[in-house]
């Protein structure tokens, strides 16, 4: 596996299992960015209740998350979510599609719950861009999604592009350095001929990019960085491409962190290998123990070294 997938594995495997064999269930689990899930069967074995808590829900609702979820899941969405959670779906195993590809797709779409909720502001920005494009000029409103405690995504539509800005905070010194190298590399990588069509990426450390400089409450410290993606209409004109773009962009932060951790592990394995090699050299360099010849005094007694 090289890329992280947008859907949640636990939802996928649990649902697939419950379809074949319904049984009562009560599990809680998480997803990236502090999302909490609760999957349970409160009434009967064949009706699963899946609830999600996401910390930026209020912002998402403002940007149309309800509509997106309604579109994706229709009647499954509950009007009154479970207490402590933001959104609840009821999946009735009896009325679900028959076994086969259709069911797999259904399960997969449920596993994408978090992705779909977060997709709302992006979709909004894409439609806004269309409007502005026909108008010929102008800029959309700056949407901010505070999806983590210290980090946020800013999205702004313009007449010819959609700009997505991530603020990233690294709690750890080493991670920060890795992150910096990575993100700079990211900017460089675009020069490769094979990925010329990729969105343009800009990276700034400490200073926020001009687009969001006026936003109040931005932190000014060494450990903060800003990654800017510039999406052109070709990245979201076609609906499938747009969906792919959204999935990838949403996972950007998690993927970055995953990759940093992977490369740390990779470096450590190189270091372990090197240490083992050096140890071999050192072991070879050991002087052979001097073979002790028995020494005797004149009278014939042996000498013992203590």
């Amino acid at each position, binding site marked *: 596996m090289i890329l992280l997938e947008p859907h949640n594995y636990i939802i996928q495997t649990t649902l697939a299992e419950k379809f074949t064999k319904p049984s009562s269930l009560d599990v809680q689990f998480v997803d990236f960015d502090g999302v909490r899930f609760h999957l349970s069967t409160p009434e009967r074995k064949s009706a699963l209740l899946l609830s999600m808590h996401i910390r930026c829900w209020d912002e998402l609702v403002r940007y149309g998350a309800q509509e997106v979820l309604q579109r994706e899941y229709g009647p499954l969405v509950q009007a009154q979510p479970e207490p402590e959670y933001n959104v609840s779906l009821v999946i009735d195993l009896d009325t679900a599609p028959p076994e086969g590809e259709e069911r797999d797709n259904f399960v997969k779409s449920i596993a994408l719950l978090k992705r779909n909720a977060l997709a709302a502001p992006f979709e909004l920005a894409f439609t806004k861009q269309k409007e502005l494009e026909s108008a010929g000029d102008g800029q959309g409103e700056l949407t901010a999604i505070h999806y983590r405690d210290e980090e946020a995504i800013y999205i702004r539509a313009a007449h010819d592009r959609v700009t997505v800005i991530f603020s990233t905070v690294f709690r750890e010194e080493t991670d920060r350095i890795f992150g910096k190298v990575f993100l700079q590399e990211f900017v460089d990588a675009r020069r490769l001929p094979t990925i010329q069509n990729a969105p343009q990426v800009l990276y700034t450390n400490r200073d926020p990019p001009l687009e969001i400089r006026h936003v109040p409450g931005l932190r000014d410290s060494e450990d903060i960085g800003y990654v800017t993606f510039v999406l052109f209409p070709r990245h979201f004109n076609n609906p499938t491409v747009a969906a792919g773009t959204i999935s990838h962009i949403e996972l950007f932060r998690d993927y970055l962190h995953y990759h940093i951790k992977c490369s740390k592990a*990779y470096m450590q394995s190189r270091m372990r290998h090197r240490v*083992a090699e050096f140890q071999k050299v050192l072991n070879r360099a050991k002087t052979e123990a001097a073979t002790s010849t028995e020494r005797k005094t004149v009278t014939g007694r042996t000498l013992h070294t203590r």
Partner: protein
Amino acid sequence: MSLLSPIICDNGTGYSKVGFAGNSDPSFVFPTAIATRGPASQPSRSGPAVPSKPGHLASKRGVEDLDFFIGDEALANAKTPGYGVSYPIRHGQIDNWDYMERYWEQTIFKYLRAEPEDHYFLLVRDQHCSTGLPDNLSVQTEPPLNPPENREQTAEIFFESFNIQGLYIAVQAVLALAASWSSNRVVDRTLTGTVIDSGDGVTHVIPCAEGYVIGSSIKHIPIAGRDLSQFVLNLMRERGEMVNVPPEDQLKIAGKVKENYTYVCQDIVKEFRKYDAEPYKYFERYDGEHSVTGRKYSVDVGYERFLAPEIFFNPEIYSSDFLTPLPEIVDGVIQGSPIDVRRGLYKNIVLSGGSTMFQHFGQRLKRDLKQIVDRRLEASAVSSGSVQKSSGVDVDVISHKRQRYAVWFGGSLLASLPEFYSSCHTKAQYDEVGPSIVRRYQIFGTAT
């Protein structure tokens, strides 16, 4: 932000159990296997791949650090050219740290989909080497199993690579004891007891006093799940049931029979008589299908239904090397422990692992053990000339619903207690003290 639930990771030799605290079952159980690029046979002959020329161009970078699979996917990719499968844990000890680190990476990010920086972790470690004494003084019956350096390395990986918030390394046997608190027969939450842990490869009998393992009296029994399957296979072959079954499926079917039809009887002779009198009532039929040709076959399941688990109690019917029955071993283990904890050990015998799940297993063990104990008490009463008489010793074996993943469940239970967070080693403490912090071990959660 409210705290996200801690992650419980039990990496065993064969299977890893991972999930979130507060749940009753692990979210994932998959083989501890990893498929990486390059042959598995000689993992580090030339070390990990090195980019040919160091440069600053992104074009020179590969994706070696991301290119691997774990768990079921690893086994599925075993045949893919270019990949080799390896098992990073051997005999309960981490053998290859490079692979293990990568294995954890994908467990956390791909399967659990958690950001490790937001979570506390509870890891499970083998029971050996966990006496309350400092580790270098602990008495061990086993050769060097799981030295503290391994724990330190684990802590290094978790704190430095993953930047986790806090870590608690728990002992298998203690978690199995904690899991038994879910049984309604347990009244006080104690961490004193004897754990019988039987998985696929080996069965351990571990005495535990107030959360500390009495390392000097641990015993291992070379009879476990794999032997049971083999024994069922032998019996069925002898009876000629297996002639219709394709050879490659035979062991699998023996395993299925073992899981679905077997139980522990109270008296073999009676049981044989019962079966002979009314074979149609007791014999079961197992239907299978050849995986390639699709040909149907069926086998009769007979005496092996009660004979298979019997090898714990009468090992001579299976092997000629190992002849001590399980109740005797348990009694020996408890007698080998300090005298002041023996009562507690007899009173709280806890089962854990898949091979202890047979029906009536607990009752039979309890009965046999009680007999041994009573006989000894009688003998000592006689030898004292009937002057002193013991008030009797309570023997109790506790079976519960969560036996199969008892260790994981115990972890889930402990990690959802509020004391868990204060018993964890936090990142700040780690930064202050260094890896040696995990040599300290704190018990929590008991009622006392």
